[in-house]
């Protein structure tokens, strides 16, 4: 296994040492990895020169095949060849029943909340399938860039809910990748087009991929992106175009659409090829191989347009809704960025152009644009561009709420709130002496809990027994910069923190992930102990490097000589432990210790930076503007 390339501690605690970072577009149909090399962001090809990795995983008795080879085997081995799993990731058994009827897999429901697909190599979750894809891309990046990755940015549809984001992050963890940030796909596309370097304005990102549709309204102001509104449909895309065409073809050929999984699979392949051909031709020949014999016809652009028209119209009506959410009109949109392979279909470009009243941007390959943007962001987050002003601000795409009496939702954090965000809610007990309560967290815009997505159930325990209504339990819902939810609870009167037990409705528990991690490592020849050791060493060096860089920039200004000596000594202790110990736990403890010792300094820095940012802005500077009035 490749080890991190890091200078000897102390030798070059270079504040801006170049870190290897990559952006990954984990797509429904295809996935890509990109990186910034010599100042240019580009997608990385495999050894055959292919940039796109089909998001298809084939399970076989003696191993796993990912990509083109798996895709080719889909028709002959439909049950063990999994594609479009992005539609399933972070979803529950009920969702899968709805979506799954269109997917040719055999689902098994066991006691876990996560649906599994039965394959010849055992039952697998969408998280594990996604991890297989991520492993290939991570390996491709390591191989091409020549070293261990410091971190990656993985893109997700802006519409993804908490469970889907968490599941994506879990997949990365299984694949052994450190995730700097989950980035919304539309934001990545805007970054790829350099809209963040341009003039202030409002932009629309129209992303029609294989399996998902997203439209986002981004506002750029003073070099900062804000997502004003997002909307979409996690189950609408080019796959549906293919399905519409395939069903129509089968009907024309007089075959029933549901006859046989292999036939449907074949018809879908033929439909996709025809759709792609029609991007450059007026008509295309069709040859369908059916059990009853071959069948031939011709498909025209006009016929394709008619077949997909209702689906494209559906996306336009979402565009209208999202514009309203953002509080802007179509003519206020500066640029319309086209993302996703399905935007190559001419009818899509026409209808989008018509709706926004301008030619959409199509210069960058719509399949690669998201990965390219992710790579640029990864480069910034790795700290390779310390003077870069780029900062992306994001929103939570769906309202977070809790279930109240009568199955109604109470919104705690409304959608389109800028993240990170934390909101607190107080609860009280219903009965005398009550020591536990259950809270159900949901995500969605509807009033009825049953119409929203169930995210998790929390149980607050160890509430001090009191008379009914006396306990005041403050529950804080915090959404981090990745859009992931965390919950904390505290009884106000006594200060006792109630323990929160999270049962993700559609996610894997930590234990399940650890189990999978262990299984995957046992599978390979890697030694789990060695891997943990390397991880802790890397983490320790990262901490030392960050601290040294901080000390170099403002250590003398913010610390007394005594404090400085103490921190230097603490840093030295960690260095010694890293050098000597083969015990991951010992290194982990030493890192914690150093972090504790430096906590006051880290805080001092943050406050000092804020003061610096606000320096020169004195209150009296604005008194003359007071008369301007409120909005």
């Amino acid at each position, binding site marked *: 296994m490749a080890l991190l390339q890091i200078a000897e501690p102390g030798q070059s605690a270079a504040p801006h040492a170049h*870190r290897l970072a990559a952006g990954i577009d984990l797509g429904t149909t295809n996935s890509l990895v990109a990186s910034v090399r010599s100042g240019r962001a580009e997608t990385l090809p495999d050894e055959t020169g292919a940039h796109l990795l089909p998001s298809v995983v084939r399970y076989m008795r003696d191993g796993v095949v990912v990509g083109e080879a798996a895709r080719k085997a889909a028709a002959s081995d439909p049950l063990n060849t999994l594609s479009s799993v992005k539609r399933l990731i972070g979803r529950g058994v009920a969702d899968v029943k709805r979506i799954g009827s269109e997917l040719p897999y055999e689902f098994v429901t066991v006691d876990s909340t996560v649906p599994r697909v039965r394959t010849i190599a055992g039952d697998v979750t969408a998280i594990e399938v996604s991890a297989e894809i991520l492993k290939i891309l991570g390996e491709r990046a390591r191989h091409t860039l020549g070293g261990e990755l*410091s*971190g990656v940015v993985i893109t997700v549809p802006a519409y993804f809910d908490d469970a889907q984001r968490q599941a994506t992050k879990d997949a990365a963890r299984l694949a052994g990748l450190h995730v*700097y*940030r989950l980035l919304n796909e539309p934001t990545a596309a805007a970054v790829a087009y350099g809209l963040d370097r341009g003039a202030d304005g409002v932009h629309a990102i129209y992303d029609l991929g294989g399996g998902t549709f997203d439209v986002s309204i981004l506002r750029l*102001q*003073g*070099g*900062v992106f804000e997502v004003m509104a997002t909307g979409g449909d996690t189950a609408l895309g080019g796959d549906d175009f293919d399905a519409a065409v395939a069903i129509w073809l089968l009907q024309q050929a007089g075959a029933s659409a549901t006859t046989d999984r292999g036939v449907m699979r074949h018809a879908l392949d033929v439909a996709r090829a025809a759709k792609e051909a029609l991007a450059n031709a007026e008509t295309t020949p069709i040859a369908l191989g059916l059990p009853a014999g071959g069948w031939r016809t011709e498909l025209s652009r006009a016929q394709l347009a008619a077949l997909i028209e209702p689906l494209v119209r559906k996306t336009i*009506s979402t565009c*209208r*809704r999202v514009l*309203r959410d953002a509080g802007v009109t179509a003519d206020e949109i500066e640029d319309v960025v086209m993302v996703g392979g399905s935007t190559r279909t001419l009818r899509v470009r026409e209808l989008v152009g018509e709706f926004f009243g301008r030619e959409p941007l199509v210069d960058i390959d719509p399949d690669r644009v998201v990965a390219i943007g992710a790579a640029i962001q990864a480069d*910034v*987050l*790795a*700290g390779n561009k310390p003077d870069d*002003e780029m*900062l*992306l*601000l994001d929103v939570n795409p769906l309202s977070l709420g809790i279930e109240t009496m009568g199955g109604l939702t109470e919104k705690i954090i409304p959608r389109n*709130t*800028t*993240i*990170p*965000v*934390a909101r607190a809610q107080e609860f009280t007990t219903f009965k005398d002496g009550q020591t536990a309560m259950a809270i159900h967290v949901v995500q969605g815009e509807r009033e009825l809990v049953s119409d929203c997505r169930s995210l998790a159930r929390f149980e607050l325990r160890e509430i001090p027994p009191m008379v009914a209504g006396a306990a005041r339990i403050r529950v804080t819902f*915090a959404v*981090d*910069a990745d859009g992931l939810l965390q919950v904390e609870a505290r009884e106000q009167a006594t200060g006792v923190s109630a323990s929160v037990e999270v049962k993700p409705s559609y996610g894997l528990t930590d234990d399940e992930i650890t189990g999978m991690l262990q299984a995957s490592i046992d599978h390979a020849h890697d030694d789990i102990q060695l891997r943990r050791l390397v991880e802790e060493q890397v983490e320790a060096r*990262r*901490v030392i490097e*960050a*601290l040294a860089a901080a000390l170099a920039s403002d250590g003398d200004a913010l610390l007394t000589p005594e404090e400085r000596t103490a921190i230097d000594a603490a840093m030295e202790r960690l260095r010694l432990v890293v050098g000597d110990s083969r015990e991951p736990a010992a290194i982990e403890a030493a*890192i914690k210790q150093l*972090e504790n010792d*430096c*906590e006051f300094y*880290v*805080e001092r*820095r*943050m*406050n000092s*930076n*804020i003061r*610096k*940012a*606000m320096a020169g*802005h*004195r*209150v009296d500077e*604005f*008194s003359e*503007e*007071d*008369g*301007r*009035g*409120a*909005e």
Partner: protein
Amino acid sequence: MFDFSKNYFELFGLPVGFRLDTAQLAARYRELQKVVHPDRFAAADAGSQRLSLQGATLVNEAFATLKDPLKRAQYLLALRGVEQDPQKSTLNDPAFLMQQMELREALAAVSSAQDPRARLDALLDEIGGMIKHQLARLAVQLEDGGADQLAAAAETIQKMQFLNKLHAQAEAIEADLEEAI
């Protein structure tokens, strides 16, 4: 800990008051986020990351509060020690309450109107106008700052809450109408 002792106005380096320059506020917000946002600490140690998360969360909350006139007014009243507990105080303005009931009934009847869209637009305009009117009163009351005026401001805030709720209902009906098209 992150410096939580400052009030939101101080955090943004702005004078404490209801009237504020929203462009200035937005500019300050970005300057602050450029310093505290977790993206600035993606490759940093865990301690800095935690602190940055707290800082960015506080800055977002402060911005959301100051940006929205209603929340800003509530925050100002809280700073000035005026209690606002909707459970304890009831609105004593029969004319206003009557008007609310009428508007609610009018909204319920939109779908059966001859031209639902036009009827809804008229109602949205009417409610929007009333919100603007209350906002102007609020500005005067808070600017005055006397105890009577602050108490009156608390009542105006309650009225605005009623109106905002109505406006949200009207928007929900609008969304349903669009859906039906």
